[in-house]
């Protein structure tokens, strides 16, 4: 059992030394084996000191990444807050959202340059599609499993995730349709789906890639901010505020909070729990759709596997901030966004960022499973 209760007067000094030595040994080992990843503090310090604007620059692009991650993470965190289930399929709903946004933008502009208003309009189909899809999945795949052990609905969600990923992959097959009907001009834009099913699909460039600081500070300004970054950050802020308003001020939002706190009591108060849960999924999905358009405009491309990495980052953000907590999701996303863009810049490969985010996830879960802002069974949704 607990060894500290045992009389161990013989070893206290040894234990105290061990308490100091153990972290040092761990740090030493990490630095030893972290070198292939580029984890060399000397080089990192030199690089940052040599060019301090890196930090600010990465903070900015980290902020833009965080904006997208926040919006996806809220989808995870809301669903978790209300039914305590990790909705694995959420990331693929997001991925399909990027496809819908892409097809909408390119399809309606018919091969010519997509105007900005069309890109903004793309939020509507993407959000409707993702919200509807998430609600349909909840209704037909998860609802009847809610009374079963949690592992059952998690496995169903995993299966759903695979199905949606395959749909995203197979969408690419339609690129062969224009070849089949070369005379039909109205479908030639499908070429946007890439050469093969799995190849990345480029979004039309809607916002120019210019530095908006140049007109203000002149051409020598060391920092660079592009319009797309500003756009995703503003959009994220709008979405978060709209959601907070919805949850705080509407009847449905109140019902959601009630269900999150105590479904049984909420049902007794006359709240249709099934409907509210369905609504939560729909809103989470709609946010994923919004994030999908933001992602497309900011990153400029998508493919069938973008869901995995972004879902991972978002889930980590939700957990780091304290799952079930919307403010926490935003805070966690900020951390993850900045850390991942810094490590993209400073480590030897962006693959290591993925690994780094996972390590952060594990560390948070092991040492503070409630996250930064979370408290066990406390504030939800």
């Amino acid at each position, binding site marked *: 059992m607990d060894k500290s209760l045992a009389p161990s007067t013989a070893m206290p000094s040894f234990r105290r030394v061990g308490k100091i030595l153990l972290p040092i040994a761990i740090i*030493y080992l990490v*630095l*030893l*084996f972290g*070198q*292939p*990843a580029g984890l*060399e*503090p*000397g*080089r990192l*310090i*030199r690089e940052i000191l040599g060019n301090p604007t890196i930090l600010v620059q990465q903070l900015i692009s980290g902020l833009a990444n965080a904006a997208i991650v926040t919006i996806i993470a809220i989808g995870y965190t809301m669903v978790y807050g209300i039914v*305590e*289930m*990790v909705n694995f399929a959420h990331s693929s709903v997001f991925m399909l959202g990027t496809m819908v946004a892409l097809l909408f933008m390119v399809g309606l502009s018919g091969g010519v340059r997509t105007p900005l208003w069309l890109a903004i309009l793309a939020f509507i189909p993407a959000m409707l599609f993702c919200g509807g899809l998430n609600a349909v999945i909840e209704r037909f*795949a998860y609802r009847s499993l809610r009374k*079963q052990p*949690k*592992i*059952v609905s*998690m*496995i*169903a969600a*995993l*299966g*759903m*995730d*695979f*199905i949606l*990923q*395959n*749909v995203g*992959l*197979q969408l690419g*097959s*339609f690129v*062969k*349709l224009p*070849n*089949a009907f*070369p005379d039909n001009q109205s479908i030639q834009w499908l070429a946007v789906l890439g050469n093969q*099913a799995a190849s990345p699909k480029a979004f039309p460039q809607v916002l120019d890639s210019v530095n908006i600081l140049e007109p203000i500070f002149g051409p020598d300004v060391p920092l660079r901010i592009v319009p797309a970054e500003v756009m995703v950050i503003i959009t994220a802020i709008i979405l978060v505020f709209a959601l907070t308003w919805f949850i705080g001020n509407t009847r449905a939002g109140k019902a959601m909070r009630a269900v999150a706190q105590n479904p049984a009591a909420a049902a007794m108060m006359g709240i249709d729990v099934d409907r509210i849960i369905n609504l939560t999924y729909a809103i989470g999905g709609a946010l994923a759709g919004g994030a999908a358009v933001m992602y497309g405009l900011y990153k400029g491309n998508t493919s069938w596997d973008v869901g*995995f990495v972004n879902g*991972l980052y978002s*889930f980590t953000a939700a*957990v780091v901030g304290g799952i079930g907590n919307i403010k926490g999701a935003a805070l966690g996303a900020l951390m993850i966004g900045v850390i991942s863009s810094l490590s993209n810049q400073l480590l*030897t*490969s962006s*693959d*290591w960022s*993925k*690994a780094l985010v*996972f*390590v952060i*996830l*594990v560390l948070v*879960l*092991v040492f503070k*499973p409630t996250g930064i802002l979370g408290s066990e069974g406390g504030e939800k949704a």
Partner: protein
Amino acid sequence: MLKKILNRGEIIAVALTAFLALIMGGWQIMLVAVLAGILIGLAAPHTKNAVPRAAAVGLGIGLVIVAITSFHNTTLNTLPGQEVIPPESSTLGTYLIALGLCVGFATLTAFIHNLHDDRKRQIAFIAMLGVLAFAFPFFEQCPGLKWDNFNFGDMSAGCSVKSNILWIGPVIVMFIYGLQAMGLNIVAGYAGLLDLGYVAFFAIGAYTMGLLNSQQLGNQIGSPNLFVWGFWLVIWFAAAAAAFAGLLFGAPTLRLRGDYLAIVTLGFGEIVPIVVKRLDAVKIFEPISLFIAQIMGKTGDAAAQASVCLVGCFGNALDITSGTKGISPINAPQLGDVYTFKVGEFVPWYFVALILLVVSAFFIFRLRASRIGRAWVSIREDELAANAMGIDLVKTKLTAFIIGAMFSGFAGAFYASFTSFISPDAFDFSISVIILAMVILGGSGNITGVLLGASIIMLIDRVLLDRLKVIINGVLQGVVFRDVASGPLSVFVNSLTDATAYKIAIFGLILVVMMKVRPQGILPEQTAARRRPQ
């Protein structure tokens, strides 16, 4: 009408085997017939006339299979793009043998199925499956095996005509995955821990074999055979490495709640291939001296000279895993000086895999009945109660994790040697989910069920979808688009109807449907409470 004659199990057997016969054809009729016989026997009711009834049903279904196979051989096989079916495998004799196999196995299985003594029945079943498994490679490969030209390694060398499809390769892979499914079954089925990164241990086992039984490392040091330690030794190292990784990953994380554990394990499954992918140019310095050198502003070679080098700093960096290119060739097992296993000579591999599978199954079966096995199940059923009864939760879960990882390590080591080539792409997330699907589909907690699940999923993965693709393509090319056979429209429709492209969705669908319809799996675990009354 049909329901009045056949019971539900028999209808399933008919539908399944008719479908298989339709898309397989040729010599495969033998396998389909045996399968049909066993299914009919298992579906036989517990009545007095069960055995004659099964024989009769077997005859009926056998005739159906023969009819469908001859349809396949004469009609479907004339479509473009089909495999050549040797004429020996569509003779009347072949059909009669298949009919006999179907009736014989139906009778035998029904007889065994109706034995009253539980123990006798089990032993008889295992004996029957054992004989089948042993005989499989001898009649699988070719119609008309010539024994005078017999070569144990490559049986098809003795064939007058080779069979149109070789099953033995997929079956060996099926054994490897069955071994993994049994290992995951310990973690997910017995102990109830959802592990979504099980592929990590598979990868670790495979790479241990790849590093210690190939010239990958030795070539860079200048003595190529320094790290060629032989299959029989390294497979134990691989299992130990995987088990150690299980300890390393499990110790900090097994305190977590179930859903968090799933995410964290998913992370491990993702990190291991990333690490493997990036270990293609490793330079390791002593960190403190490197820190000082770099802080002084030295980079590249200057930093290397100013600090203490441990691994691969001067000249070429050490290429441990060859990154995405992968490690190849990995040495095959040797039986002393008598025989060296070869890629493509499947039969010896088959028997090693079979022995590995059987021994592991026996080991896990006994483990389940032991004190620790009962502790796993009690944790799954009620953690609080188990803890109250004095079971150390973390230690018990950790044992499950480690032992589960160990079997994956065995599987990985065998896989690496069998394919002689490993790369990080072979260990992505979908493998974890496929193995999970095997456990879920067959019946988590039940070894027989898990092996059944592994067979079904691997059959779909390695054989069925490929066959379906060929047949659908053939129908499209030969019937629907006969006039514009390779036109752009048919290319489009082909890629849309490519059955193999829906692989992931099918596994996902299996997970969702099983969760909704039968979460306990096809063959549920026989716990004391659920055991059927005698």
